[in-house]
């Protein structure tokens, strides 16, 4: 009964969604404000990756809010799991030598790759969030392969706080010397398509990369370490 009701509701909803989206133009030009971002982006920010230019500069305030939401989620998760009396109900056995050796080899390489992604966020696809996630995946790999791997939780949260704070401080530096919050004219913009270019955008993305990396690492550690052995 419930299933059929749900199906009828979904068919109705699908019909309306199809009706609405059929009015959208697909695959044709429909520029709004982003025409300015695309045409003037290189001139104003010198960042090759226009998506990064939007995320960090034109909508940098939005990204600050997003980082805050991520922080809030990590806090909520830690709060929820602190009251959890989670116990493991099955035996967990040691990973094989191949898994252990491979994860130890991959761990530094993955961290290096994550750092590469967020350092080149203004030049190539990728950026702080993506690089941070790759770093967190390295930590997760180690946690899955080794019982004894304990990331230092205090250090993780301290570094994460510092990274988040540097984002806000760069924003305030823009407010003091550049005229507006997160303004991109406090340091020289440099040349187009070079590593040291795009003003504060790479600095902010490195901060975001560290913050997301440490945040998600702490989050995964929280989830895995609250489960007590029986």
């Amino acid at each position, binding site marked *: 009964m419930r299933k059929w009701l749900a199906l009828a509701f979904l068919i109705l909803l699908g019909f309306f969604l199809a009706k609405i*989206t059929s009015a959208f133009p*697909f*695959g044709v*030009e429909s*520029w709004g404000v982003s025409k300015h971002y695309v045409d003037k982006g290189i001139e104003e920010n010198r960042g090759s990756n226009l*998506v990064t230019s939007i995320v960090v500069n034109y909508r940098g305030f939005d990204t600050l809010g997003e980082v805050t939401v991520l922080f809030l989620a990590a806090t909520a998760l830690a709060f*929820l799991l602190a009251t959890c009396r989670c116990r493991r109900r099955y035996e967990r056995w040691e990973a094989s030598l191949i898994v252990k050796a491979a994860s130890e080899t991959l761990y530094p390489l993955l961290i290096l790759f994550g750092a590469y992604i967020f350092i080149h966020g203004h030049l*190539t696809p990728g950026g702080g969030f993506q690089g941070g996630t790759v770093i967190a995946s390295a930590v997760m790999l180690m946690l899955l392969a080794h019982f004894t791997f304990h990331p230092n939780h205090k250090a993780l949260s301290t570094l994460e706080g510092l990274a988040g704070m540097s984002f806000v401080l760069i924003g305030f530096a823009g407010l003091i010397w550049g005229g507006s919050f997160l303004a991109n004219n406090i340091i020289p913009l440099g040349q187009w398509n070079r590593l040291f270019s795009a003003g504060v955008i790479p600095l902010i993305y490195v901060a975001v990369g560290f913050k997301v990396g440490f945040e*998600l690492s702490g989050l995964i550690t929280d989830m895995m370490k609250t489960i007590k052995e029986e």
Partner: protein
Amino acid sequence: MAFFVASILLILIGLYAVLVKRNIMKIVIGLSLMDTGVNVLIISLGFIRGRTAPIVNVKDLLVNTSSKVVDPLPQALVLTAIVIGVAVTAVALSIVMLMYSKKNTLEIDEYKELKW
């Protein structure tokens, strides 16, 4: 057009899982699917036929950029949405862990206190 249909299907499949499935993990998977569907929809709104990615790394793209690349704004918005989706999934999973530690089951029907 196929992108719109695919995204609507993803949203509906996710909503179906949320409405009908009894296993809490499957409900969380449904939430995640809905998230992906919305992201696909927003991305495909910025698509322009025959254009390249909005990354200006060759000289050719420097002049008259807006006639050569797709709209980067939806991509930037989806970048935000993906991260928030991860946060939502993480909190949802931690709630599932908490619920499982209380009652030892993932069946949503066992949690009668949640009904009203």
